[in-house]
C-alpha cells in the first residue's frame, strides 16, 4: 500500500496534446476558422463562393511561396531570396509571352522556362548555402540582390502586360468551377504526394539533427540543395499566380512577399529551427494573413490605421501560435 501511495502512474499526455503533436497545423487551422467566421459575421458576402474565390485568387501566390519557404525551413535553413525569385520568374514569363505572342503554346513555353528559372535560382541558393557553407540569412540576402538585378535586366520598368490567355484562364472557370479551385486541388494532391516521398522526411531529419543525419549516412549537402531547389520551383509557381492576378510584369513584385512567407510558415506551426512542421500549416498561415487583412478592412478600420492593426494582429497571431504549439508539445 505504501508503494502505491508513492508511485504515481506515468503521466500520459492529454488527448488534445497528443493530437496537436501529431498535427502541428491544428492551432493554425483553428485560428483560420475563427478568422473566417469573424469575416463572415462582419461581411457575410466574404464567405460566399465569390468571396472565397477572390481570397484564394489573391493569396494563392503567398500560399505557394509559404510552401516553398517551408521546405527550406524544414532543414533548418531560410531563404530570403524567395520573393526575388518570384519577381524574376514573373518578368521572365511575361517577357517570353510578350515575344512569342498570345497563344496557348506561348503560355506553356513561358511556364516551362519560368519553372527552369525558379529551379536554377533554387539550386544556386542551395550550392551557396550548403556546399559553400555560407550563413543562410546573409547568403540568400546576397543572392536576392543578384536575382533582383537579373529581373531588372529582363524588364527595367514595371508595366509590360501579360497576354489575355494567361490571366483570363487564371481568373476564369473550367467546367463552371473557378480555375483557382482546380489549382488549389492540384496543389493539395502535389503536396500530399511530396509528403509521402522521402524528400520531406530527409529534410526534416537534417533540420532535426544535421550531424546525426550525416552520421547515419544521409547526403546532408545534397538534401539541403534539394530543399532550396524545391523552394525555387514553388516560388516559380507562386510567380505564375501573381502574374495571373496582376496580369503584368514587375521586376520588384515579389520583394515584399519574402517576410510574409516566413511569417506564414511560423503561423503554420513549423519550427524555424528546423526538423518539425507541415506544409499544410504554411498554407493555412498564408490564409491567416489574408483573412486578417480582409477582416481589418471589413470591421471598418480607418484606412491609415489598417497597416498598424494588421501588423499588430499578425504579431499577436505569431506569438499566440508559438505559445499554443509549445504548450502542446511541452
Amino acid at each position, binding site marked *: 500500500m505504501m508503494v502505491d501511495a508513492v508511485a504515481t502512474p506515468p503521466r500520459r499526455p492529454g488527448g488534445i496534446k497528443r493530437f496537436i503533436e501529431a498535427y502541428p497545423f491544428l492551432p493554425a487551422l483553428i485560428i483560420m476558422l475563427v478568422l473566417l467566421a469573424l469575416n463572415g459575421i462582419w461581411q457575410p458576402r466574404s464567405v460566399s463562393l465569390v468571396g472565397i474565390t477572390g481570397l484564394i485568387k489573391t493569396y494563392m501566390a503567398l500560399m505557394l511561396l509559404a510552401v516553398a519557404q517551408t521546405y527550406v525551413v524544414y532543414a533548418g535553413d531560410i531563404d530570403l531570396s524567395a520573393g526575388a525569385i518570384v519577381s524574376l520568374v514573373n518578368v521572365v514569363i511575361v517577357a517570353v509571352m510578350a515575344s512569342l505572342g498570345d497563344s496557348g503554346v506561348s503560355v506553356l513555353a513561358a511556364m516551362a522556362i519560368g519553372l527552369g528559372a525558379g529551379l536554377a535560382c533554387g539550386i544556386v541558393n542551395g550550392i551557396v548555402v550548403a556546399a559553400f557553407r555560407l550563413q543562410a540569412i546573409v547568403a540568400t540576402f546576397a543572392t536576392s540582390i543578384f536575382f533582383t538585378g537579373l529581373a531588372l*535586366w529582363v524588364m527595367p520598368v514595371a508595366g509590360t502586360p501579360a497576354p489575355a490567355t494567361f490571366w483570363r484562364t487564371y481568373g476564369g472557370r473550367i467546367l463552371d468551377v473557378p480555375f483557382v479551385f482546380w489549382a488549389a486541388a492540384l496543389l493539395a494532391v502535389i503536396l500530399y504526394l511530396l509528403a509521402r516521398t522521402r524528400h520531406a522526411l530527409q529534410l526534416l531529419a537534417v533540420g532535426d539533427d544535421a550531424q546525426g543525419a550525416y552520421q547515419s549516412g544521409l547526403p546532408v549537402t545534397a538534401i539541403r540543395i534539394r530543399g532550396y531547389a524545391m523552394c525555387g520551383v514553388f516560388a516559380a509557381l507562386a510567380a505564375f499566380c501573381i502574374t495571373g492576378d496582376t496580369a503584368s510584369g514587375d521586376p520588384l513584385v515579389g520583394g515584399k512577399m519574402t517576410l510574409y512567407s516566413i511569417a506564414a510558415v511560423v503561423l503554420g506551426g513549423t519550427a524555424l529551427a528546423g526538423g518539425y512542421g507541415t506544409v499544410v500549416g504554411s498554407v493555412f498561415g498564408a490564409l491567416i494573413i489574408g483573412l486578417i487583412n480582409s477582416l481589418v478592412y471589413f470591421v471598418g478600420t480607418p484606412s491609415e*490605421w489598417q497597416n498598424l492593426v494588421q501588423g499588430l494582429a499578425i504579431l499577436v497571431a505569431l506569438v499566440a501560435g508559438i505559445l499554443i504549439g509549445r504548450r502542446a508539445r511541452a
Partner: protein
Amino acid sequence: MTRLVDTLKTPIIVALALIFLLLIVGEMLSPGFASPTQIMRLLIVAALLGIVAAGQNLVILGGREGIDLSVGGVVSLSAIIAGNLMNGQDAGIPLAILGCVATGALIGLINGVGVTLMRIPPLVMTLGMLGVLQGLLVVIRQGIPSGRAAPGLSQFVTQPFLLGLPGIIWLWVLIGLFLAFLLSRTVYGHRIYAIGSNEQAARMAGVPVAAIRISLFALSGVFAAIAGICLIGYSGSSFANVGEQYMLPSIIAVVFGGTSLAGGKGGYTGTMAGAMMLTVLQGILTTVNIDESGRQMIFGATLLLLMLFYGRGKAMRA
C-alpha cells in the same frame, strides 16, 4: 611567424585590406573617388550604417539565434519622430533626441520581453515588430508634415566639426570606443559573451540571462533610434521607410566584421570595418556608369564572394 599570419587573418585586418583595395579600384574606375571629400562622405554614410549595426552586433553576440529585423523600422520611425519634434528648430533637438531614444528603447524592450519571457524566436518577434512599426509609420504620417531637420543637426552630420571631420564621425568613434570598453573591460560585457556562447553555463554561474538579453534588445532599439536622428540630419527631411535599407545590411556588416551569427564570438571594431567596406563597395557601384540591373548583380555577386572569406561553417565529419 605563425602568430603574425594569424593576426593577418583576423577579420578586421582582412576587412581593412579589402577597404583599401576597394578604394584603389574605385579611384581607378573613376578618378577622384578616393579624394578626401569623397572619403569623408563615405565615412558619414558608413557611420549611419555602423551605428545601426552596433545594436545588431550586441543582439547577435547575445546568442540564441539573436537577430533584430526591426532595426529598419526603428530607424524610419525615429527619423519621422525627430523631424516632427524638431520641425526645423534647433531648440527642438534635445526633445527630439529624448523622444527618439525613449521610443527606440521601448520598442527594443518589447522585443526583448517577447524573446526572453515568452521565448519567441528573435527572428519571429522582431519580424512581427517590423510589421507593427511599418503600420505605425503610416499612422504618424497621416496629415502631419513629415518634419524637417534642425540646422544644428544637419551641421552636426554633414559639416566639419573637429579636425575637419563632422560630429557624426566622432560620435561613431565614441560609440566604437564605448563598446570596445564595454565588451572587453566590464562585467556586463563579459556576461554578454557568456550568455552568447553557453547560456546554460552562464545561468548556472548566476548570470541574469533574461535581464541581459532584454537590455541588448533595448540597446539595439536605442542605437537604431540614434541612427534615425542622424539620418534625418543627413537627408534634411524624412520619407517613407528610409530605414528599410539598413535592416539586412546591418547584419552583413556584423558578419563581415567577424562576429559569428551563432553568438558569443566577435566584437564591434570588426563591425565598424565591415560597415565601411559595405559602404565603399556601394559607393563604387554608384559612381561607375552602369545601369541599376548590372549594379545590383555585381553587388550581390561581390557580397557572396566576400562572404567566402568569412565565417564559413565547418564541414560535416563523421
